[in-house]
């Protein structure tokens, strides 16, 4: 008798469409709808509210704890590795992050470890020149792990706070490329067992649920400590990040909201929930 009201069918349909079109995907949409049903029945403060408000409130609870925050660098250099599939925004994010940390008064070095793609090193060098940040690079075709080590050595010798390692795009389905990543990590670990201290997957916010699979495979092979979701200045809402959080509990540090150095914003659960249901 006191079980509270049931959320009506129209509201649920409205919410289901909002979740799907935000790229939550089948599994996560079903889970969130179940959470909404449960919460609505149990929580009087939700009853009688608009579907959008209920959705935002429940999503906020689902994402509780998902905000990543960079602590001050414990080791020098603290290494942050940017990894992810082709075109996700790693190089641009590496530059943006370097810019942000420099603005915080940190000493930062960039490592151009994409030794494969045409003009990848030039791209990062161009950023480094523009932002007046040191970059360590080698020649095209050089061994990525060797460049990572050279950059680490240089950053250590110069007392840098952070070393940000940009890596080549790679599809998670390519075993030999995932092995290359593991090698970069092994080489750094020889000289600092904790390096890279931060291993961030950079995910294109306009993609669908394949991002969840990307995260699973990269996490299995490299061990992710963080997520950055890019291109959310577009119309996509990056719903795959919710699936990634629910399944892997990887904190989300930043969102990419444009192509300029300053277009990197700390992830806010509250703002995100509003963006999905607003």
């Amino acid at each position: 008798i006191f079980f509270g009201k049931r959320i009506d069918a129209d509201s649920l349909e409205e919410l289901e469409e909002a979740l799907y079109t935000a790229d939550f995907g089948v599994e996560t949409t079903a889970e969130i709808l179940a959470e909404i049903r449960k919460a609505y029945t149990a929580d009087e403060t939700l009853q009688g509210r608009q579907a959008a408000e209920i959705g935002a409130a429940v999503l906020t609870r689902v994402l509780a704890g998902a905000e990543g925050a960079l602590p001050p660098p414990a080791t020098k250099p603290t290494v942050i590795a940017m990894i992810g599939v082709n075109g996700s925004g790693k190089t641009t994010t590496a530059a943006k992050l370097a810019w942000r940390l420099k603005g915080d008064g940190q000493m930062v070095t960039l490592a151009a470890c994409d030794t494969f793609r045409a003009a990848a090193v030039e791209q990062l060098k161009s950023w480094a020149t523009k932002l007046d940040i040191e970059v360590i690079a080698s020649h095209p075709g050089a061994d990525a792990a060797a460049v990572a080590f050279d950059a680490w050595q240089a950053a250590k010798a110069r007392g840098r706070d952070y070393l940000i390692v940009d890596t080549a795009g790679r599809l998670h389905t390519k075993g030999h490329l995932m092995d290359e990543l593991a090698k970069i990590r092994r080489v750094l670990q020889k000289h600092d067992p904790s390096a890279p201290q931060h291993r961030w997957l950079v995910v294109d916010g306009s993609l669908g649920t394949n991002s969840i699979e990307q995260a699973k495979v990269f996490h299995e092979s490299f061990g992710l400590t963080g997520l950055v979701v890019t291109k959310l200045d577009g119309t996509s809402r990056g719903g795959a990040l919710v699936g990634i959080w629910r399944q892997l509990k990887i904190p989300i540090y930043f969102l990419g909201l444009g192509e300029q150095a300053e277009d990197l914003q700390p992830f806010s659960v509250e703002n995100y929930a509003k963006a999905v249901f607003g």
Partner: protein
Amino acid sequence: SLTEKLGSALRNLRGVGTLTEANMADALKEVRTALLAADVHFKVARDFVERVQTQCVGQEVLKGVAPGQQVVKIIHDELVRLLGEGETNLSAARPLKILMVGLHGSGKTTSTAKLGKLLKKRGYRPLVAACDIYRPAAIDQLEILAKQEELSFYADRASRDVPAIGAAALAAASADGSDCVIFDTAGRLQIDANLIEEVKKLRAKVQPDEVLLVVDGALGQEAVNVAKTFHEALSLTGLILTKLDGDARGGAALSIKSITGVPIKFIGMGEKTGDFDTFYPDRLASRILG
């Protein structure tokens, strides 16, 4: 697999009468779920399932065929028909002018070189034109790929006028005897009015025979809005679907095709310039259905 799921949803129908809306309801739910899991747009999935229902209802359940397989064949054939419709060949114009457009990181620059390589094999003398004046080292990227594939190359690193660069590229092509020009452009959001205006001006200036939208095979639900806006602005003539060497199901292709009717012309299946092929609808249909 979808065949197994449908088989289980339709197991009571073995050799018994006809397919009805009622006895197909569960099976159609499975189809909708499979499409949504493939990142097909919410509304496109719903419309497709309705179309399948219309085709299935009233059909005799064939003896000797599992009902699940019968329905999957109907779905697969409908998908192949939908995906393969339209002019999938390139314009026969000569000189041939192709404009590459799309969201950031979708594979435009790489696909420009890939297309140049493919057309060279077909007997063209391609020139690739660097019209991305924004991304750091974008021009270098295309220049390196052009050298690698021995394609003519045009850029003007001093210019900030994209339509003028396009016109100059055409002049350079006619000067060096190139009979095909492929214009690589900057990544742009469909909601960026200034950049959409820029590419409209470029299109008006160079009058391309083909305008190809380059789309990441893993693109999500916004594929429809993105493609619609690019199509309204530029009258797209084709789609290139990239990164199909990954495991994304590629539902965005169905969404874009059903909403805009723009034919899918090429697919990218790797990072090397040779990893490029004309599009085969039956392969993509199987991939989307999972």
